[in-house]
């Protein structure tokens, strides 16, 4: 039975050898040599240090194209013209499915035709060498971003390739990203990823790990995102990770977003062991965007405004072309600059909004309920607790496509635009808190003169892309 326990060294080595055999480029990974490579990197490429020592929110876009030279050009552009502080390398979907053969085909087709036939950078196919060419070329820290349930080979290659930050986790890269992978399976696989990051950490190369906070990106109640982030932080800590960045996706209500980021920071520091340095990342609106760049710029700016008030350590920006498809590099850089302008204009202002403490308190109480139920379900073991709580529905994520989550709860906005839970299904929660949500939602239903129903949820899903926060009839 899998538990929250550190993978022993010999087991680490065994799995490492095994997974590196999955694709030819795995053979090029040499841990000792990789440590030496990381040690040779200048300070400004050390992800954890740069992030942890920043005195205002650092900006990071999303970006990945199949070919190495294009990826270099893209990141140089985002660094130079977009003024990004931290850079990403987003991995393609075939690699996420461990379909390295298909990724290879796509990469070759991309090389032949010049077209982007993959939706990201196939790092496994590029191998250690390819990754290092990228790391060497770019004068800033770079994170691997993906969505891979089984990211073991990707981690082995990208860590050896010089990346010092790796997004994802066993829940956050399972529940929103895949249908059939069991939680037990993804937890086991991510224990390896974290253990490998821990092995580098032990040797002084602190690999930053970032659970994917926004989950399904669609009206996720803050406490659910925070609880899952904390669990993934705990799992990573057990395996020796010492730099953890917990994430949260904007819901669009400024008070709730600021409160959530505050709660995230406070609770993470409380729940995670002292030796872990916790930072936070705020994702600009992750749900459906307006099909209009001008209006999308408004959505992005509201994110920038929220970031200026809450001051997370990092902000992941969106581009005005989010609705349409993978953005041009110009649009991607534009999203960065719009965000930067708003943050820099607002961050020195003294903007103290009423009601943040109350909302934060509510979010913290909810999160504790969820953490308690995980603890209880697992008899003190967070791995078993997580598996069983998802299984019983005591822990759940709205719009989860995964068979591992019930996906039975339904969120809706209250009259002030804060995300509440409309259908609780089996989610574990104090009755008193449920009453608060209920009262808020019935206030909205009253305002609108209609019943609470799935129609309301659907309207809320579309609201921001339709130009409003709340999906009023």
């Amino acid at each position, binding site marked *: 039975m899998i538990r929250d326990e550190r993978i022993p060294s010999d087991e680490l080595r065994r799995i490492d050898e095994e997974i590196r055999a999955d694709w030819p480029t795995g053979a090029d990974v040499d841990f000792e040599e990789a440590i030496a490579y990381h040690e040779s990197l200048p300070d400004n490429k050390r992800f954890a240090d740069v992030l942890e020592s920043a005195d205002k929110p650092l900006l990071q876009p999303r970006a990945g194209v199949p070919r190495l030279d294009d990826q270099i050009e893209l990141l140089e552009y985002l660094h130079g013209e977009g003024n990004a502080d931290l850079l990403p390398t987003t991995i393609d979907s075939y690699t996420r499915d461990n379909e390295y053969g298909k990724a290879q085909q796509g990469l070759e087709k991309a090389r032949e035709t010049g077209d982007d036939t993959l939706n990201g950078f196939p790092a496994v196919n590029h191998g250690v060498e390819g990754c290092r060419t990228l790391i060497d070329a770019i004068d800033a820290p770079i994170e691997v971003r993906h969505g891979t349930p089984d990211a073991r080979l990707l981690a082995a290659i990208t860590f050896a390739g010089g990346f010092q930050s790796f997004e994802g986790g066993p829940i956050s890269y399972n529940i929103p990203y895949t249908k059939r992978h069991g939680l037990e399976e993804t937890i086991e696989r991510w224990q390896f990823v974290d253990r490998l990051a821990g092995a580098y950490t032990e040797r002084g190369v602190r690999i930053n790990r970032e659970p994917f906070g926004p989950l399904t990106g669609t009206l996720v109640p803050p406490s659910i995102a925070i609880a899952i982030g904390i669990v993934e932080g705990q799992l990573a800590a057990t395996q020796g990770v010492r730099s953890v960045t917990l994430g949260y996706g904007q819901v669009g209500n400024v008070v709730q977003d600021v409160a959530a980021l505050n709660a995230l920071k406070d609770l993470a520091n409380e729940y995670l062991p002292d030796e872990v340095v916790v930072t936070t990342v705020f994702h600009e609106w992750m749900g459906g965007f307006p099909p209009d760049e001008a209006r999308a710029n408004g959505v992005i700016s509201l994110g920038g405004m929220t970031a200026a008030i809450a001051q997370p350590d990092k902000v992941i920006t969106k581009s005005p072309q989010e609705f349409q*498809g993978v953005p041009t590099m110009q649009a991607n850089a534009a999203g960065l600059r719009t965000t930067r302008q708003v943050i820099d204009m607002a961050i020195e202002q003294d903007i103290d909004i009423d009601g943040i403490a109350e909302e934060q308190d509510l979010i913290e109480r909810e999160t504790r309920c969820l953490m308690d139920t995980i603890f209880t379900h697992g008899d003190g073991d967070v791995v078993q607790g997580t598996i069983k709580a998802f299984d019983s529905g005591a822990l759940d994520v709205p719009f989860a496509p995964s068979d591992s989550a019930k996906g039975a709860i339904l969120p809706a906005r209250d009259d002030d635009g804060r995300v509440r839970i409309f259908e609780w299904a089996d989610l574990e929660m104090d009755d008193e808190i449920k009453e608060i949500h209920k009262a808020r939602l019935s206030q909205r239903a009253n305002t609108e003169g209609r019943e609470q129903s799935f129609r309301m949820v659907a309207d809320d899903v579309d609201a921001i892309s339709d130009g409003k926060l709340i999906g009023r009839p």
Partner: protein
Amino acid sequence: MVPNTMSQTVVLGVIGSDAHVVGITILEQAFSAAGFDVVNLGVQTSQEEFAEAAVAHDAGAVLVSSLYGHAEQDCQGFHEVLEEAGVEAETYIGGNLAVGQDDWEETRATFEALGFDRVFDSETDPEEAIAALRDDLGLTTTDTERATISS
């Protein structure tokens, strides 16, 4: 429950390894509310699973969704698979069908060439697709509405 006529059953799913579920959740609700019987296969559905479900439910239409940018690869040979299984349903595809900021007319042509009867972009309102399907299946609003009322 009123017995399903073939023409009113719709098989819906997200193809390939795409996990974007929100769109089909909305579509499922809209088609059901419009009186269709919806079989929602969920995300990450293979070509074979679409074909099997269409046969099993005698579907009038197969609605394929794709958001993540690999639709073209995922749909290669799809219509051959349907044909082999003997599926004669209308086939629609919708969502975000190409990687990047492409030209829509080109995209539409690509998917029509792959065999889809109709191709929808991501600005499509579910009502449009419903109206189109009623048309293609020769249903009147009342046919489906009656189904709703009596089901």
